[in-house]
């Protein structure tokens, strides 16, 4: 694969070839780190640390596995270690950001405000998932890792990975439908109004 070409170049002493790999996977590493650490500065630092680790351990990479999964695994382990070292109120940082955003949202047209509200709702549903469920959702649906790759990242067998993802989806449906129960009337009214207006 193309990754392998770059890896071989790096191992042959071409340090600059590594930059291509950084560009290719930096969003993956940052995405996972942000999801597990909830802090942009820390996620950016961790992204650099992970790539230095990858570079230092490149010789130990086994080409039978996906390079993407290998990098993701190093990232997840690094973040877990970091979280264990500094057990902190991760959710607090997130809430702060939401509050800032809500303040900035004032003065938007109602339609956009509704869309934003919906986005926030969906986001908080995702955030409220237990960590390992959320991680599987992020890896599969946001970072486009395959089931095989997620098995390599988490070390779980396929049955558990599938089960986690299915249950996570179910939890998301439940959380979001609890909201829908409250708001359904209002939205249906809007929908009906729109319908009538256009006809």
């Amino acid at each position: 694969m193309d990754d392998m070409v770059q890896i071989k170049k790096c191992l042959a002493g071409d340090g600059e070839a590594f930059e291509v790999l950084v560009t290719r996977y930096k969003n993956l590493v940052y995405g996972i780190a942000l999801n597990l650490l909830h802090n942009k500065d820390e996620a950016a630092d961790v992204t650099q640390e992970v790539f230095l680790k990858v570079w230092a351990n490149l010789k130990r990479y086994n080409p039978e596995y996906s390079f993407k999964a290998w990098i993701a695994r190093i990232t997840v382990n690094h973040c877990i270690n970091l979280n264990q070292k500094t057990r902190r109120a991760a959710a607090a940082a997130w809430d702060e950001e939401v509050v800032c955003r809500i303040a900035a949202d004032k003065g938007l047209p109602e339609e956009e405000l509704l869309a934003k509200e919906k986005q926030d709702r969906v986001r908080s549903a995702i955030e409220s998932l237990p960590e390992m469920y959320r991680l599987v959702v992020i890896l599969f649906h946001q970072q486009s890792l395959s089931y095989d790759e997620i098995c390599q990242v988490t070390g779980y067998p396929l049955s558990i990975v599938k089960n986690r993802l299915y249950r996570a989806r179910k939890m998301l449906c439940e959380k979001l439908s609890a909201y829908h129960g409250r708001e359904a009337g209002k939205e249906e009214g809007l929908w009906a109004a729109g319908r009538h207006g256009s006809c």
Partner: protein
Amino acid sequence: MGCRKAWELLMRRMDGEIDRQNLRYLENHLMICPECREKHDSLSAVLMELDRTKPAAPESTEPKVMEKIRSVRHRETPLFLPYVVPAAALLTGILVFLFYEYAMDGPMAMINKAAQTLTIFYGAYQSVAAFSRFLFGSVYLNGVLIMTGLALLGGIPAFLHGQRVKRGVSKYWRSVK
């Protein structure tokens, strides 16, 4: 009725593993069942949100990572010393060997004289040569002894220096890890 199957098919569709026939079944069910439609809409909203909020790493990631790698690589270069110095010492040894074995007997009497004035060095050479003659019955092997001596003399401190640098680098990696 059929909601369980619809859910299964919805899961399969999210996995990207649904065939045409099942997809039609799912779509038909979603049209007639508001409950399943709501689940479908919730999950679509989740996927959209995940796509919309896909985090992008800072632009500075590459330069920062590459800068660190370059600085570590720079510190790694003295590791080559243990390989370079013995080779250089060996080459010097060979040159010395050739100089003594051939130039001395040739027309270069002046060089011969100059070399003889370096009594200590020449004396050392003479005793090595005598030792070699005694040991191997040949004067030519003394060149080999001189070469080995020089290689060891240059090689040992260079090797020790290399080891010290290497320890420093691995300590750095331990701190990164």
